[in-house]
């Protein structure tokens, strides 16, 4: 059936930025904000 002859990038989930970061175990500020300074 057509529906089966596809590859679903999202594997059926509508994951937001914060879900993606959370699944990766990142505990960033407000979910996606990097606080510490980065060097030159």
């Amino acid at each position: 059936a057509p529906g089966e002859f596809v590859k679903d990038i999202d594997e059926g989930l509508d994951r937001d930025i914060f879900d993606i970061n959370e699944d990766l175990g990142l505990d960033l500020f407000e979910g996606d904000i990097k606080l510490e300074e980065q060097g030159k």
Partner: protein
Amino acid sequence: NSIIGDNYRWPHTIPYVLEDSLDMNAKGVILNAFERYRLKTCIDFKPWSGEANYISVFKESGCWSSVGNRHVGKQQLSIGDNCDRIATVQHEFLHALGFWHEQSRADRDDYVTIVWDRILSGREHNFNIYDDSVSDSLNVPYDYTSVMHYSKTAFQNGTEPTIVTRISDFEDVIGQRMDFSDYDLLKLNRLYNCSSSLSFMDSCDFELDNICGMIQSSGDSADWQRVSQVLGGPENDHSNMGQCKDSGFFMHFNTSSGNAGATAMLESRILYPKRGFQCLEFYLYNSGGESDHVKIYTREYTAAHPEGVLTLRREINEIPTGSWQLYYVTLQVTEKFRVAFEGLKGPGSSSGGLSIDDINLSETRCPHHIWHIQNFTQLLGSQNVYSPPFYSPEGYAYQIYLNLNSLTNVGIYFHLISGANDDQLQWPCPWQQATMTLLDQNPDIRQRMSNQRSITTDPTMTDDNGSYFWDRPSKVGVVASFPNGTQFSRGRGYGTSAFITHERMKSREFIKGDDVYILLTVEDISYLNSTSNVPDPVPTSTIYNACSEVECQNGGICTVHEGRAECKCPAGEDWWYMGQRCEKRGSTHDTIVIAVSSTVTVFAVMLIITIVSVYCTRRKYRKKASSNPALDAQNQHAF
């Protein structure tokens, strides 16, 4: 919700580097996101050429950014796995530009309720508020539709929402990841004092009497009329679909009378290109004869041809009758120009004519193809549909598959299919990025929030059975047939089951007049394969551009003189700007005032000196006289 402090601002043109670590698809998506900034804001992006501060976009774990310009030289922004969605990139760059999340603004609790006991333990801090001493909402109301708003399920510890909107209608609106909202743009343009954008040129829905400054050409045999309905059709305009009483206008060329060959030409006002390439978009309605058609011209004005040179850019024949149809025309104009729409009456009877509405002109790239889906409402939730076949500029044949019969989400997938050029093409298909856009049909291109997904054919990608995913469809695909019975091979689809929710699908103007448009572009992005191929000049100290750190005011132009940035200030007939950054204004009026006042001052000073000297002299002689009276009598006679 923007961080307070001018030191956090970036220049209006932000230097960037796309690092090699990025996925190919992500690089293409980031460049598309930059185009949305260029269309709707005054923020531009340029490859880093040695400026002190720039944004380094790379692939690390997750999607994240810092807030504001941190002046750290290389400021990193991560677009990792699954972050390569255009609105995610827009979201992270808004952080870099100085914005926090929408629900962290000081007055958040007036609009939403945070349900603390539904938040993942240890993640409560993500719902902190900034007070208005550090965060500025720029006098814009709370924005449920912001691309910076958490969704209702953010950091939930179960299945219940962590954010509940006080107005329940917005419950499923928050957390949209489609595009900038109107308020997002209002805030950003306020924060960076935007008054224009790089690529927007014109948008006209003919609601104003001045019809956006368009003019009727002379030398044609009829005029376009501004009307709100035509007996032979259309009954309504396209902008509002007749929803608004006493409004809803469009331009109409009546072909129900007059002779075959009659023409009517409508010209835009003069427009000034900056980038040299444009995309013209408009809706046509044909209620006339089948052979009535439209020609699109440009009239370019040059020193050699001040009256303008008319050039035919596109002839649109066989316009379907009975409904509004969307058209795109690619232009490549470098001089100031007008766009002209010429309606032509063909032979044969007509009970109406040609109508045009919702024109948009921008210096962006047109989509390669349009998939027009009619009677969409009856399809949603019931059927899956395949697009007609299309060819990419490289010659690859492809098709789009819309999965509409799931309960909650619409899925979209890209399929390579067998085509006429397959023997001459490279297989597996290398680095073709397919961008699929569900068009938000708002008449004004700047107010659209179209939903877009891009995928890229990675020639090294293998399928579960070990074959190359993007190999030749006749080799790895399945046999299918077109509605006319012609057989072809269809490769496996690649896309997402979560393209858009049914609820959002029915929102905004995605479905308009029961029509849906999917815009398609497939382009070769192999040039992005390594930084050395990305148009980023290699940064060396010798090409450091001092002007990149300097912003001349009041239209001053920065030049580099002996390695130092200097502002050349504008001047007019009786005025001029001056100062290091042209921040001071001068005028002949000032000069006159200075001249007069200095003259008066000099005169006053001289007068005072004179008076004082006369007074002293008189006093001196008076003393002498009083000390020698005889001398005084003799002298009297002598004078």
